[in-house]
Every structure is written in structure tokens, then in C-alpha cells.
């Protein structure tokens, strides 16, 4: 299959540029084992594509309706998906694993659906629930909580390369991006049908103009890393369009279309021309950062803070603006001249002569030009004696400008710490006419070849063609693209999404290369199951919660993760899922679960991103100004500011997503730096102190009950006898150790120990023993069992 693809591809390549006579030559060197069909395909390089289509690649074929297979152990089947899994197991003479115990199950499900560990009360209630629909009740409770949306959003934001800053050298804050993040949370929580979710993110501005709740969805497109400082606006347009195109291809279609940018795709049947046809859907798409947001509590607070800063800096700003206003024309001219030749062509053209392309470039210019840019002219004119612009009269003005700028900086602390009253979105600026798109030779935007029109890659679009209806304010192109992607007959969209969800629950997708359904990717391990899920998903109205519910209530998901030698021998990679796959918690699950355990989590949903404390030696400077409000320090990790150049260390060390491009799969590394972070971070240690306090408060004075409670909180189980013995022995030893240090310390007159925090009642608490208990709690929180989901 692989070979055939390569040869056909080559034949097409050659056919494009070489004489047809050469085709005979190819067949001469073609593998003698090639079938007649393959030979005719290779020789018929110039034949219409239909003849080349021997048998479409599996993911390009329409999703097939599936019959649920008959299985021997029919009693095990709770959901149809179980039958698909069991059928494969039975082929290998493997039995599925027994159900996990209820404690393990609720810990697993809560981590998966909410991203945190359950409380002991939740565990207890579930374990004690003898009703026949106990599992259904649990799953429905989990799915109806806003934490479900938060957890799903985090996974989606990985794909959307979400960040709160622009990236590149300056990496400036993009203050409105969190609104897109909140849109994603809300969409999952309101169980927005997936097709609608897709359409809004691709074309929210076109399908619901004026509806700010929908327009914000285009933040998906706007999430590209950006260089506001670039002197080449034409190149920037190309790079931005490229980013949007490649992201859409990878996220929704799991196609590495990016490969076709510089040359026809080496592996998949996507030509460079088709690639640029995809790009052309975004040709007219431009960034807007100043759409007024609907004013709510957040906006009011922001505006209040903003007004304070404005009032305090009014005279400074006015004086500075006046200085700049006096030189506005030459300064703007000077600033515009910094751009490269082809950008300048657009910049210096009269507005009446603007083509759609010029319009885009000029909008971009306006978007990235700041007052300070005009100040640069003043600086040159005042200081650079060998410059043509040199004018000694400006020396004083520049000095004053500089002083004012420095003075202004002093008021930065008065600026609103977070939030905004604007929306960032992608729109077409009210113009239906899109700039031309060209096929670029070798992907080089300075070497345009033929002009191309919007179109879908024939290999998987089959006969679909874009239906484009321009509106008065937009080209309608993205709506056409969105309609095709979100169409029930698109062979990829549903498969790709259900596979991503499966990957989240089972650690590996049915197609393990979750963002590559092309020929370089892996094939599905259970194609019938994949098609069943996809078909069912679409037929049931693209309901995401329903999909999750199906999996959560299945027997496959309910299996124990205990090691089974027979299953391991027959299927070492556990592809068939005879055992539930264990997984290390991801970065957010670790941090958020520690916060939950310590009772410190601030579970406010939504709002501007926050800056929790970072280690002093991070040296991030102004890129990371810790939030003043301590309540912000313990927000869910989802709300931690994503600065492209400064990853939040605790999450970073546990393999958080990189926001530079689509992040399809979290990796799991195991490093000493992680051990150091969990064992030594003052923050994590404080959480352990708080957890110790909570345990003591909840367990009462019985030492045995304390250990039970700790294990119940962290592991949803009680310690067994040998663990208890181990822990008690440790406590006794540690007490001696600390007491010894205490005796020595008292003589020096300096001695401090860590004690449990948050206790209302400390009477009768032996501080030494309590300190030993903190150590115990901290150690258990560091253990493998905590860091894993069984």
C-alpha cells in the first residue's frame, strides 16, 4: 500500500513536468510484482484522477454503519462499544478484566472528567450506593458539572495552541484571548453539538454576525503565534494564513496538509495547489482586537481600574501625545518606511486604490502600530547626527518625550492587573472581496505561480465542492469550509473527534496518531469500533456528552487496571484493552488534585488568566508578575496565564502542552526535575501542610483514623495493614528525629518546624508529632500512587 502510494505520487509528479514519453520508463523500473492495476496507474500519469483512485485510503472512505458484533461473553456487554472490543479479545482468546472496585472507579472517572481527585464524601456515597443505577448517577453528576467543561476545554486548548501572549521575541500579552478559552468551556458545558462548535470557531463572524458570544469563537483561528514587530507584513500575512490553514487541517481533519505547502504532499494525496486552495478560505481573514465586549462584572472592574490609571496619567499622556502629534506626519512616514519593499507598496498606496490585499496589509499596520513607534522617529531625528533626518531642534522634544515615557512607566502598577473590555476575533473587516491566493513555487511567497480558488482536497472531499455565498460584510468562504468540515458525510471530522475522545480515556487512540489520519499515520486498531462511534456520534446529533457517557458507562472503561500476566503476554502493548490502561496524571491533574486534597482549590469558573507564584530563581522579570490577589494563586491550572516564552514551571516540568503549535498528545517524561519540584517546592509543601491540617480536623484524634483519612483523600481507599505498619513506623522514627533536632535547636535558640495549617483547634496537638505527620503527608502525596490514575 505504502509503496503504491509513493509510486503513484511520483508518477503524478513526473507527469506534471516531464514528457509523457518518460512514463514508459517508469513502468520499466517498477517492481515486477506490481499488479496490472498498479502498472496502469503509474503509466497513466496524465489520466484523470478518477482512474488513479484504485482504492481510497481508509480514512477517505465514507464512515460505514456497523452491525454490533456477536460475542460469546454477551453478559459483559453494557454498551455496544463493549461488543466491538470484546470481539477482538475473543479472537485472541482473551477475557476482559473484572470491574475495578468502586473506589478506584470513581477516582478514575473524576480525574478523567473533571481533572481532579474526588472527595472522600463523594467516594463514600458512591461506594455505599446500592441502587442499580449507581454508575449512571455518578456519570451524570460528573458530566453535568462545570468542571467537565473545564477539563474538556483544556484538551481542546492544547489543539488550539491557546496562549495569552503573542509569542516571538516580544511575547506581548494578548489581553482578550481568555474569552475564547471561556467560550470553549461554555460550549462543552452546554453540550453544544460538535458540528456547531466547529462552525462557530471557523466562521462565527459570518454565521452569526453581531452575536458576540459566537464571534469570540474565532479566537480559535486567532491563536497563532504572532510577531507584532515584523517588518515584512506580506510575509506575516502568509505566515498567519499558513498557521490557520495548517491548524484547521490538523485539528479537525487530522491531515498534515502543511506538508503540501512547499511541494505536493510526499505521502498523502494533497497537491500543493490543493493546499493553497485551502489557504484561500482564509485569504480575507483579519484580526480585530477592539470589539467592545458585553459589559458584565469583569468588564466593570476592568474599566474602573483602567479609569484610575487613566486619571493618574492624564497629564503625562496628553503632553506626550502633543509632542508626538506635532511630528505625526514625518514620524508616521518614518515608521512606515521601516517595512520591507512589498509591504511598502501597499502602505504608501492611496486608500482609494487599495486592493483587498492592500486593505489587509494596512489593517495589519494599524493593528501593530503604537504611539511608541512614532517616538522612534523623534529619537533618530534628535540623536543620529549622521542621519538625513537629524534636526537639533528635536533634541529638547525628544528629551522631554523620554522623560515622560519613563514617568509613565512608574504608573504601570496602577494598570488593571488582568482582564479587558474588548474581544479578539477574526473577521473580514466588512468586505466580501477577498485578496487573490496564488500557488507559491516551493512555498515561497515571493514566487507566485497561478492564482487558485477555494477548493477542497479531492482525495477526501470526494465530490464535494465549496458552496460560497458572500454576504455584505464577508466573503462567505470560511462558512463554506466550515459546512464541509462539519458535514455528516465528511469522512474525517467525526472519526477524528471520537478518536481524540477515546485517546483521552484509554491513553491511546483507536488510531494512535491522533492528528495524522494520512498515510504516514497509523491505521485503526479496531476500524469497526471507530466507525461505530463516528456513525453513532453523527446520527445522534454530534452530542459530545453522549459520547463521553457511552464510554464512561462501558464495561471496557470499568475494567480493573491490575496487571494480568496472560493479557500482557498476548498483547504487550495492550492494544486490545483486556486491561484498563493506567496513566500518569497530566500536569494540570497533578497540580489541581493537590489543591483539591489540601482544600485550597479556588474553583471559580472562567475569567481573565492569573499568575500564581513562581520560584524566585525563575528570573522571568516582567513577563511574570505574580497576581496580587492570593485567591488567584489557587485557581485551576486552566486559568494560569499561558505566556509563550515563560512556561509555568510546575506544569512545565510535568509535560504541559506547548502553545507554539497544535499539541495533539501529552508526553509523559520521568525526570529528577519533577521529583525536585514535588518534593521541594515551597508551594507544594504548603499544600501538604494544609492537607495535614485537613486530615487531622476530619479524622479527630485517633491516629489510625488519620492514616485512613489521608488515603481516602488521596487514593480513594484505606491503607492496608502493611502500609499502615510502614507509616506508623515512619511516624515514630520521624518524631524521634525531629525531637532530637528540637533539643539541639532549643540550645541554639533557633528552631522552627513545619506544622499542619488551617486547624481551628490546636489544643492537645503535639507540635513535634504534628510535624512528623506533615512529613508523612508530604511523602504520601509524592508517591507514585498519587501521580497515577489506575
Amino acid at each position, binding site marked *: 500500500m505504502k509503496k503504491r502510494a509513493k509510486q503513484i505520487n511520483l508518477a503524478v509528479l513526473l507527469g506534471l513536468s516531464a514528457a509523457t514519453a518518460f512514463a514508459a520508463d517508469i513502468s520499466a523500473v517498477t517492481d515486477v510484482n506490481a499488479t496490472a492495476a498498479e502498472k496502469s496507474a503509474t503509466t497513466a500519469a496524465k489520466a484523470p484522477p478518477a482512474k488513479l483512485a484504485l482504492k481510497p485510503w481508509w480514512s477517505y472512505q465514507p464512515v460505514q454503519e456497523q452491525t454490533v458484533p456477536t460475542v460469546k461473553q454477551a453478559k459483559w456487554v453494557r454498551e455496544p462499544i463493549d461488543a466491538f472490543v470484546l470481539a477482538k479479545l475473543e479472537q485472541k482468546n482473551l477475557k476482559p478484566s473484572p470491574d475495578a472496585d468502586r473506589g478506584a472507579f470513581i477516582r478514575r472517572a473524576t480525574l478523567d472528567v473533571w481533572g481532579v481527585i474526588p472527595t472522600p464524601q463523594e467516594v463514600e456515597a458512591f461506594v455505599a450506593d446500592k441502587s442499580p443505577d449507581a454508575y449512571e448517577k455518578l456519570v451524570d453528576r460528573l458530566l453535568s458539572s462545570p468542571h467537565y467543561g473545564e477539563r474538556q476545554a483544556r484538551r481542546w486548548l492544547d489543539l488550539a495552541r491557546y496562549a495569552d501572549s503573542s509569542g516571538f521575541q516580544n511575547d506581548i500579552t494578548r489581553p482578550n484571548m481568555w474569552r475564547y478559552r471561556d467560550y470553549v468551556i461554555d460550549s462543552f458545558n452546554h453540550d453544544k453539538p460538535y458540528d456547531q462548535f466547529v462552525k462557530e470557531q471557523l466562521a462565527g463572524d459570518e454565521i452569526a454576525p453581531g452575536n458576540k458570544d459566537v464571534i469570540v469563537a474565532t479566537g480559535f483561528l486567532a491563536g497563532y503565534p504572532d510577531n507584532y514587530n515584523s517588518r515584512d507584513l506580506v510575509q506575516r500575512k502568509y505566515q498567519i494564513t499558513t498557521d490557520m490553514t495548517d491548524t484547521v487541517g490538523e485539528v479537525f481533519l487530522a491531515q498534515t496538509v502543511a506538508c503540501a505547502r512547499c511541494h505536493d504532499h510526499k505521502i498523502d494525496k494533497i497537491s500543493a495547489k490543493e493546499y493553497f486552495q485551502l489557504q484561500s478560505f482564509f485569504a480575507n481573514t483579519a484580526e480585530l482586537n477592539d470589539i467592545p465586549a458585553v459589559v458584565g462584572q469583569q468588564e466593570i472592574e476592568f474599566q474602573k481600574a483602567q479609569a484610575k490609571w487613566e486619571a493618574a496619567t492624564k497629564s503625562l499622556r496628553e503632553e506626550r501625545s502633543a509632542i508626538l502629534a506635532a511630528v505625526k506626519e514625518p514620524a508616521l512616514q518614518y515608521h512606515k518606511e521601516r517595512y520591507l519593499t512589498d509591504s511598502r507598496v501597499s502602505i504608501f498606496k492611496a486608500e482609494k486604490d487599495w486592493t483587498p490585499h492592500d486593505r489587509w496589509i494596512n489593517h495589519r499596520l494599524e493593528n501593530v502600530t503604537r504611539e511608541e513607534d512614532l517616538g522612534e522617529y523623534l529619537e533618530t531625528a534628535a540623536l543620529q547626527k549622521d542621519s538625513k533626518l537629524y534636526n537639533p531642534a528635536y533634541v529638547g522634544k525628544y528629551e522631554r518625550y523620554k522623560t515622560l515615557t519613563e514617568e509613565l512607566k512608574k504608573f504601570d502598577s496602577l494598570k488593571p492587573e488582568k482582564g479587558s473590555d474588548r474581544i479578539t476575533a477574526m473577521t473580514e473587516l466588512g468586505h466580501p472581496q477577498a485578496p487573490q491566493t496564488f500557488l507559491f513555487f516551493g512555498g515561497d511567497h515571493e514566487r507566485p505561480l497561478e492564482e487558485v480558488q477555494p477548493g477542497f482536497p479531492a482525495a477526501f472531499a470526494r465530490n464535494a465542492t465549496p458552496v460560497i455565498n458572500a454576504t455584505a460584510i464577508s466573503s462567505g468562504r470560511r462558512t463554506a469550509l466550515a459546512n464541509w468540515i462539519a458535514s455528516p458525510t465528511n469522512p474525517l471530522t467525526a472519526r477524528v473527534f471520537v478518536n481524540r475522545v477515546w485517546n483521552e480515556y484509554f491513553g491511546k487512540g483507536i488510531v494512535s496518531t491522533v492528528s495524522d489520519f494520512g498515510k504516514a499515520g497509523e491505521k485503526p486498531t479496531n476500524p469497526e469500533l471507530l466507525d461505530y462511534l463516528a456513525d453513532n456520534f453523527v446520527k445522534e446529533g454530534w452530542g459530545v456528552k453522549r459520547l463521553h457517557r457511552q464510554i464512561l458507562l462501558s464495561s471496557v472503561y470499568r475494567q480493573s487496571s491490575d496487571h494480568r500476566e496472560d493479557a500482557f503476554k498476548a498483547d504487550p502493548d495492550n492494544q486490545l484493552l483486556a486491561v484498563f490502561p493506567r496513566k500518569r496524571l497530566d500536569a494540570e491533574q497533578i497540580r489541581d488534585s493537590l489543591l483539591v486534597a489540601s482544600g485550597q482549590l479556588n474553583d471559580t469558573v472562567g475569567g481573565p488568566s492569573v499568575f500564581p507564584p513562581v520560584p524566585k530563581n525563575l528570573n522571568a522579570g516582567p513577563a511574570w508578575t505574580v497576581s496580587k490577589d492570593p485567591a488567584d494563586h489557587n485557581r485551576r491550572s486552566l486559568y494560569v496565564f499561558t505566556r509563550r516564552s515563560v512556561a509555568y514551571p510546575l506544569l512545565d516540568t510535568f509535560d504541559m502542552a506547548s502553545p507554539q503549535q497544535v499539541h495533539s498528545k501529552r508526553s*509523559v517524561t520521568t*525526570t529528577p526535575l519533577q521529583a525536585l519540584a514535588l518534593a521541594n517546592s515551597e508551594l507544594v509543601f504548603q499544600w501538604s501542610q494544609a492537607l495535614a491540617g485537613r486530615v487531622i480536623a476530619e479524622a479527630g484524634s485517633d491516629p489510625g483514623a488519620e492514616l485512613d483519612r489521608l488515603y481516602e483523600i488521596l487514593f480513594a481507599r484505606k491503607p492496608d495493614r502493611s502500609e499502615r505498619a510502614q507509616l506508623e513506623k515512619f511516624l515514630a522514627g520521624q518524631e524521634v*528525629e525531629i525531637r532530637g533536632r528540637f533539643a539541639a535547636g532549643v540550645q541554639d535558640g533557633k528552631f522552627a518546624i513545619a506544622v499542619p495549617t488551617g486547624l481551628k483547634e490546636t489544643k492537645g496537638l503535639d507540635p513535634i508529632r504534628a510535624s512528623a505527620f506533615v512529613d508523612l503527608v508530604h511523602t504520601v502525596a509524592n508517591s507514585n500512587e498519587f501521580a497515577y490514575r489506575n
Partner: protein
Amino acid sequence: MKSRRDILKTAGYGLGGLALASSLPGNLSGFGSAWAAELVDPLAPKQPHFPAKAKSVIWLHMSGAPSTLDLFDYKPDLIKLSGQDVPPSFLKGIKTSTQGGVGKLFASKREWKQYGDSGAYFSDLLPNLGQHADKMAFIRSSTTIGATHDISIMKLNTGDLNPGRPTLGAWVAYALGSANPDLPPYVVLYAGKREPRGGGVNWASGFLPAVYQGTAFRAGESPILHLDRPELISAAQQRSNFDLLRKLNEQRGARYPQDTELQARIRSYELAYRMETTAPEAVDFSKETAATKDLYGINEEATKDYGTNMLRARRLVERGVRFVQVVSGTLDIAGDNRDWDAHQDLELNHAAHARAIDKPIAGLLADLQSRGLLESTLVVWTSEFGRTSYGQSGSGRDHNPWGYSQWMAGAGVKAGTSFGLTDEIGLQSVGKKVDTYDLHATVLHLMGLDHLKTTFLNHGRAERPTVVYGDVVHELLA
């Protein structure tokens, strides 16, 4: 079925110890004790293919690409022709970036001097480094593929223009393991306000297991975050904490005998515990004499940052770290925070950067020699590309991937020589060229590794550090 642990106990126990005894140099045997606790360690020392000249590499990446035409590569003809158009014959075979033709030939106001028995030229920007001319083997015909810094830096470190391949340091760690179980085998040092250009991809393990990735030390006194215990926890307390942790983990882990991740996590706490002591000690200069610190320029503002990294590099090498990658930082030049990338104001830029590194590198070479470490340490001066002989912006130079200088010194290097040439104006290499792959092959050779036999099976492909290229430059070897 026995657990993995049992099998190792009966069949392979002491394997680590054995390998240690046979391949660790005698003067480091004091570090051996910790191996007893390690069973299957992916970082256990491994034998090279043939006896190694170098035990460690210090990889000095001059980020931003210095103009070696203004440092090492004396071109009298360029000075003569300065201000004239580039004769067309010199531009053949290359595509230059500026469409309307390239700038005029450009000579900076350098004074040149020959140093040592080898008579190698150094410009007045590197008076200290010149003193070590006879330790160096110059590569004067370096070439690479130059697109942008990020891409070419990636090629310099991984051999490819796209992310995904392991870096040279990761290959070394993979092929040779760690010579000191108490420190990571591959350490990255950098200075300046920002993370190095291109970021972590330049010390990534690519398709090799993650354990081989470089550990990036930060600037400042705590080179690794979270090395200090929580304030209120004593060392003894933490030791018993970790003992309990190990017991709990092992007890529970027995239920999952096949899970190597769990075992790795147990091990990671042991290395973390050792690193709490060894890592700060490795970067603690309190036992260094004032003379040593002076040698590295640590007491002078201009050379303090880079000097600190040089002294750190020596201390790490001394402690058995295999690969120390030092990325030069940025400096405030003409109101901007810049690395060596002098598209304009080359005079200011190179004066500042050369000053920052000249004394520290000279100090490193002198110090390594006086401690007998130069025999076993390979020092490599490298950059993602060089700079053009023609000028840009009237005061700078553009990128030049066609011909520039790099050098090596120390273990197994043919000291006081020079290999390869560029044309009379220093624009293009002529004759035998040395690409990044060749440099990698040569470095690996000095580490006792045949680059063709250093392979890792990735998706059925036996990948090697030099992709499908690379020749050892034997002319550079003693």
C-alpha cells in the same frame, strides 16, 4: 513468572557495577557508590566503540553567529577591496538574500596579530584567546544550510532542519551513559535575559528516550529550580521521607511488575536527592581561589556572566558530565538586547560580545590545561553560520552559511593547526568543506564513537547522529 526486579537480581545484578568498574576512569571511582542502588539504569555507563580521547565535550555555541572574519579569519584581500563591489566570480554558486544585489565589501577596523608557534591570526577583539593559539585546530571551511537562526541552530545541534531529531549531547548520553550517577550526563548552560534562541529543541532527546535530554541549568545561584529543600525540612528528615517513599512505591509497584515508568519514577527521586547536594556543589565557587575566578573574569562586570558559565562548565566536566552545551547570551547594544547577530553596528556588537567571551574562554582553556583536564576534554567553538564579507546596513554583515571558521581544542585534537580554506575575501569555502555533520562525526569519534555505528531503532529505521551524512575530519585529529 518472576518480576522484572527478580530477574535483574539473579541475572543482571551488579551489571551496573561491572560496567562502572570497566569504563569509569579511576579518578572518578568515588562516584561509584550510588550505582549499587540502581538496577536497570538507562544511564549506566556504556563502552565506547574504541578507546576515547575525550571523556567530555564543552560545546560553545556562539548564538546569533559571530563574524569570524573579524575574529580569526585574516583576509588581507578583503581589506584591500573594502568598499568595492563583490567581484562576480566570488558570488557564483550561491543565492544571496538581497534582490537588488549585495552590499559592498566591508572591512572592520581590526588589527591583526599572529600568535604562538602556529602563527594563527587573531584580531584585536580576542587578545586573550590568541594566547591559546597553539591549543587549537581551526576549521576554516565550515559550511551549513542557512535559512534563519532558529533553523540553522537546530541543524547545528540536531543535524536536521525540522524538530524531532536528537541533539548531539543526547546521542552522547545515549551512547555512553552517565559517568557520574549523581548528575545529569548532559547539561545546558546559558546566560542573558532570555532562553536561548530556538529553545529546548536544541537540547531535546528527539526520538531517543527522554532520559537523554539535556538538563538546562539556569543563570544565578540556583541553577535548577527547586533544588533547595523546603525551608523547614532538614536533610535527615527528607532522607527518611524518601526512604518511606521508596518503600511505599516499591510495595505498591509490585502490583505492576512491567511498568518501567514507575521504576523510573522511584529512581528519579534518588537522583533528585543526590542532585540537591551535587548540583549546588558543582556550581559553588566558594572553594575556587581568587586567582581562578580572576582567570575566568568573574570579578569583572563585562565577563562575569560568561565567565561563570565557563567555570561551571569546568566543574561539571570535572565531575563527569559528558556534554556541557554553553549558549552565549545577549547583551544590551545600542539600545537593543542582542546576541552576535550584527546586521548593523558590528563594531559595537562584536566589541561587546568578544569582550564578554574572550577572557572567560581563554581562562577555561588555561584552567583545563593546568588541571590536566584538557587531555580528556574537548572544547568546541561553534556557531549556526558565519557572516558575509560584504556589508549590510552600512555597519553590519549578513548571514553566511557558505564559509566561516570554527575551532576545536583539547582531547585528541591536532593542536596548532588549521584545516580548510575560504576564498580570498572569506565568503565561500573552497576545497574540502566541513558541514555540521562532519563536525558531529568528528566529535563523536573523539568520544570513542563511530557515528555510523551509533544507532537507535526508530520505527524500524536505524537512525544515526549524522542522518545520512558526515565524515570524520581526520586532519583535525592528533
